[in-house]
């Protein structure tokens, strides 16, 4: 499939520019990880559940289930969990899903849907936005949510009449995953999320490691893929976001819990984000920092997103303590290229930002680099906690359809609406061709960008399998084979 095509093309094009030596890893078998006793698959599950779901088995959740505080539910590789309509997985303890590349896990509806991923398919009729179940809801007592090579699909149902997380009520909408413990760890690696109503992942607070995942069709009429609030510290890297309603990655320090939100976003690829906002609220379409959040954003690749990196002015991000650059933008419309640095309310977009154009960005908006109204000293002026000097209107027409990043399977310029791409259908592949102008243009300079490596899990079975360092190829796929493995 896609992966095979890539390896074939990678083999065919042996490049001498690869400095990193690719040593084959020895694979030595380890016994399957077990906690507690095995969960029975003999009858559908409901109520409190703990123990181990065994490889190869299929479990059905017919009622709402709770992993109690102190308990652990572990999914061995190759487990399928089918969740009934509107049902909730409430995690007060620990939830671990140890899928592998060869035996991924699946958590989703107990029935199958026909995926309608053809470009331009009507969002109103798309099964991705049905909101079938309420996702993984972690309470503040959940110390670890660990997802590896796991599919999570069709989330976003409203909570049922008698079962909902603390602080919510019957009928409230759900996220795909919610994590709420500032002293807990949330690991998500090499996993897939497909279809949600609101945010796919809401990190209310917590230490995070979110790397090499793929997100498609997240948010029906609003919602981000990864939405981090106060007390979130960690990395969002090498993720692929296709057709997100609003942002791919967002960080805010709203909420007053835990340490200041600090998220590094690097080597992510964002395709056609930001076009399903019911009332375009002025929010972004790719990367967003706001309300006291800080972090670093480097080596990201944005194609046809509604806005580029958005450093919000009000409520202002912690502008003086953040940095960004080496980000690559491609746009087929003037609208996109006029919002590489999101502009103010004088345009109908209503987006406001104080994103400072960087000379390392591709394309480099040379005219802006020398314009006093686009300098850090001007844009980062703080009055009453707000940055009142916002990015003003500029002309990006010279950059429209310029700098095709040359994807393996995505022909640009795009024919059709920019919003028509919302999932990876059989023809799409967002790996870079060897001739891509995005290759080698990023930075691996640890003084500029390095992972925060915030999670504190030490158990070898559960800790992150790999903290992938920033790579010089922009976006989530590296020509040396590292990065996103999907």
């Amino acid at each position, binding site marked *: 499939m896609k992966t095979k095509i890539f390896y074939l093309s990678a083999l065919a094009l042996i490049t001498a520019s690869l400095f990193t030596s690719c040593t084959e890893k020895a694979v030595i078998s380890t016994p399957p990880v077990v906690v507690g006793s095995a969960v029975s698959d003999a009858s559908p599950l409901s109520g409190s559940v703990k123990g181990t779901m065994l490889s190869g088995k299929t479990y059905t959740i017919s009622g709402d289930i*709770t992993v109690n505080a102190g308990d652990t539910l572990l999914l061995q590789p190759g487990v399928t969990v089918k969740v009934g*309509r*509107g049902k909730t997985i409430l995690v007060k303890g620990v939830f671990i899903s140890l899928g592998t590349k060869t035996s991924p896990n699946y958590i989703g509806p107990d029935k199958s849907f026909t995926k309608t991923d053809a470009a331009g398919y009507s969002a*109103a009729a798309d099964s991705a936005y049905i*909101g*079938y179940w309420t996702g993984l809801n972690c309470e*503040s007592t959940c110390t670890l949510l660990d997802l590896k090579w796991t599919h999570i699909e069709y989330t976003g149902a*409203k909570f*049922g*009449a*008698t*079962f909902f997380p*603390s*602080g*919510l*009520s*019957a*009928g*409230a*909408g759900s996220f795909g995953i919610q994590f*709420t413990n*500032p002293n807990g760890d949330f690991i998500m690696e090499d996993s897939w999320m497909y279809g949600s*109503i609101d945010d796919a992942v809401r990190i*209310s*607070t917590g230490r995070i490691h979110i790397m090499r995942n793929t997100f498609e069709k997240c948010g*029906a009429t609003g919602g981000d893929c990864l939405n981090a609030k*106060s007390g979130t510290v960690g990395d969002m890297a090498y993720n692929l976001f296709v057709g997100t309603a609003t942002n791919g990655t967002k960080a805010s*320090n*709203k*909420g*007053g*819990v835990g*340490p*200041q939100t600090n998220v590094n976003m690097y080597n992510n690829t964002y395709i056609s984000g930001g076009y399903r906002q*019911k*009332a*375009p*609220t*002025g*929010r972004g379409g790719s990367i967003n920092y706001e309300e*006291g959040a*800080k972090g670093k954003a480097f080596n990201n690749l944005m194609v046809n997103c509604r806005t580029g990196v958005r450093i919000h002015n*009000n*409520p*202002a991000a*912690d502008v*003086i*303590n953040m940095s960004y650059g080496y980000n690559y933008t491609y746009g087929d419309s003037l609208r996109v290229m006029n919002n590489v640095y999101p502009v*103010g*309310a004088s345009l*109908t977009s*209503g*987006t*406001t930002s104080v994103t400072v154009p960087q000379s390392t960005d591709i394309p480099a908006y040379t005219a802006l680099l020398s314009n006093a109204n686009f300098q850090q000293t001007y844009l980062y*002026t703080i*009055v*009453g*906690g*707000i940055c*009142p000097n916002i990015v003003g209107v500029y002309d990006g027409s010279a950059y429209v359809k310029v700098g095709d990043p040359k994807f393996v399977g995505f022909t640009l310029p795009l024919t059709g609406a920019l919003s028509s791409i919302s999932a990876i259908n059989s023809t799409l592949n967002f790996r870079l061709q060897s001739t891509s102008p995005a290759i080698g243009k990023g930075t691996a300079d640890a003084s500029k960008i390095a992972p925060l490596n915030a999670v504190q899990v030490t158990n070898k079975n559960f800790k992150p399998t790999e903290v992938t360092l920033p790579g010089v190829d922009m976006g989530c796929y590296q020509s040396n084979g590292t990065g996103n493995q999907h």
Partner: protein
Amino acid sequence: MILGKTNHFKVTILLFLLVFLTQINATTIKGRILDSKTQEPLTGAIIIDKLNDKINDEARLDGSYFIKKIKPGKHLFSIQYVGYIKQEKEVYVSGNKDVVLDILMEPRKNALAEVQIVGKLDKESSDYARSSEKRADNLLNIISARSIQLSPDITVANVLQRVSGVTVQKTSNSGEGQYAIIRGMDKRYNYTLINGIKIPSPNDKNRYVPMDIFPAELISRIEVIKALTPDMEGDAIGGVMNLVMKDAPDKLLISINGSVGYNKMFFDRPFYQFNTSAINPQAPSERGIPNASPSDFPIQDLIFKGIKPFPNLNGGISFGDRFFDKRLGFVLAISNQNTYSGSDAFVTVPRAQPNPGTLPAFETKENRTYSTLQNRLGIHNKLDFQIDRNNKISLYNAYFELNKYDSRHVDQTSLSTGVGNVDVYDRSQTQLEKIYNSTLQGNHNLTNTIKLDWSAVFSKAWANNPDEAELHTASSDFGNTLILNGISHKWRNNSDQDLAAYLNVFWNPAFLPKNAEIKAGGMFRHKTRHNFYTEYSLDPSPNPQTFSTIENATVLFSGYNANAGSPVNQNDYDVTEDLMAGYGQIKFKILTKLNVLVGVRVEHDLQNYTTPMPATFPGRAGIIPYMDILPSLHLKYELSENQNLRLSYFSSISRPGFFEIIPYNIKGETFDEKGNPNLKEAKAANVDLRYELFPRASEQILVGAFYKNIVDPIEYSLVREAGPSALQLKPQNFGTATNYGVELVFNKYFGNFGVSANYTYTKSSITTYKKTYGRSNPADPTSQLVTDSVLRTRPMQGQADHIGNLSLLYKNQKIGLDCQFSLVYTGQYISQVSGWDGLDFWSMPNTTIDFSFEQRLSKKFNLSIFGKARNLLNSAAITRILKPNDYYLPSNIQLPQQDSPNSIVVQKEQYGQNFLLGFRYLF
């Protein structure tokens, strides 16, 4: 029918001119008509010249009378006053010489003493009010029916603001007073009585009663009791409002009044009306539709039409008489008020989290337009029967209803994310509130020294908010194109029922001095409370959908179970409360001038709540007991016949609201909100000192001071519960609060003119945690942005430092004119406590001026015309955050309505002037 402001003034000026002209004269006979014993002026006593047999004058407020242009020669004057022996005086008037003649009247003591239906004192007069204040064992302020009738106010809430130390919280949709704050103590610290019986509240969460439900004209007098005696329920720290309803009169009395009025606001803008007949009284789930469909929700209540409203119509009728040798008394009074009011408001909504440095930050700015139709109905009826000279029984029934139909239009503009985004909310709200009370009461003289009274009470309050519907549309291009965002429908209703019994025994044993009295008694009340809540949200389909009109909007239930409403939620709850109380007190006089009242009260309260939450929900149900022992001591030292010095101490409590103790956990607008089953009752020690001087009846000078020490006051504050979780707004007991102040009351009459003034200074302080948000090291701009907390001392919510009232009265009995000009000043107070340091909302000092008059048209038919003009200044109610105003700087993002670099205007409301003109007819 509609009188403008200018017309009113013309009428008034004309009337004043008339008055001054008639007072120019040459030969006169003048003097004062007084009670022979007490020297109290007998206002309203008539003096008739027998020679022409017509009333020549009536005694004024200070008892004076005045007969001009009298012919020289012999005159025979007849002087009459209800309850006094008629006198005749022969006077010889010679030439141009003025005659001064004071007349002392003898009360008709024995006239009706046999059946003890005294009642000859006009209990609705101001004189009676003053003398009651003077005689009372404890501290109270009284407003008489006559004062109410003459005042510009039509609801009890608005009357209350005339009482010293009372401020009234206004509703934002009409500007009408609603809740009373007594001596800076918020509404939760006060309770309401009808004829001395506590009544339940239609409020869905709390105990306090909205005072705007009571039409003022049914009230005989309003007592604000500021010091509790042991025979009173102990859960008031600020004070108690007792509404004494009209008694059966001594003879046939029929009165009718009717008036029309208008709010000037609706000359300037339309009143927005919706079709109230479309409102479904029950939610689909209550009607047996477990899974609703969009067609179950009518759209008529979301169609708003701008109209010129009908004039406001008020009317009242009262009938009373005595039968069977005056042993059976009956009174029935009905009052109905139909009022169109409104408000135009500017509001900014603060963001959940301030900017770093705990600087104010705003989410949106809003313009709100309210149009409210209020229909207020009050019916009261009393039957009393004197069985024999020792036994009396009475049955009292009261029913009050306040129906509010409120439409609200909000234009909301984003101030942060998404500049240019406009959200529009159109809401129709129907609020139906009812209170019913039925009290059967007996008074018995068992022996010469033992008396008892008992009451059996059934009382119930309801509130019903059927189908609160809201249409939400939005625009991302400054309002040029609107899209449909959703429609919601909520049903809420609650009821609160009391069954209560009271027993009081009075004993004047022979071994105690003559005036001494031992009183003991108890009470039991069983309360059942029920709350129902459900909410339905309809989403656009297709989504997104351009919005044109509500008729063209298409919606559906999206999401699983959405069509079931919210069958399980924490706003659905049931409470029962059993209160048992007993007390004993003794009253005696020592050292000839010192009155002592001392006693103790014990209250045991058991609250039992249940919610429909699942068994897994912590605190799904609970039983909470409270037990309090409340001693008190009241001393009154009679410095002289007309001077008292009072000192009192009492302890009292304030129990948590019904909803507060339920461990609800709701995602609020800014913070998560959490209930607190561990909430204790607030306990207060109260000390009062007051000097009273009553120069004459109707006149008084009171100077007082009070001090309150409140342990465990209940305040809402942010907490971070043990363990990792978010900030939560939770009612909590907060250490110790203090509240002290000074009160001055002054009433004085000069002939036809009167001045009534009061002033209260209050200072309270409470120390709570407030959150801060900023750099962990303010000197280091690279340090972490952290949320922390600090202890801060502030005044209690609702406590204004200065409160003043001034009324100027003109009363000419002869031409039958009463005029009153009233001014209320309320100093600044915290209207909304913020969880963040320094971001409290402060309501700014406010002055309102009202004017009223009543002119007798015909003596023969007892017909008079009256007018009330309210809120003449139409002064804006302004709320501010007292922080430097960065939004005033030209360099910053601008907020509208700002006028100062030193504080931020966050709310500004205007309610318009109200005019009322009517007729009163007494048979």
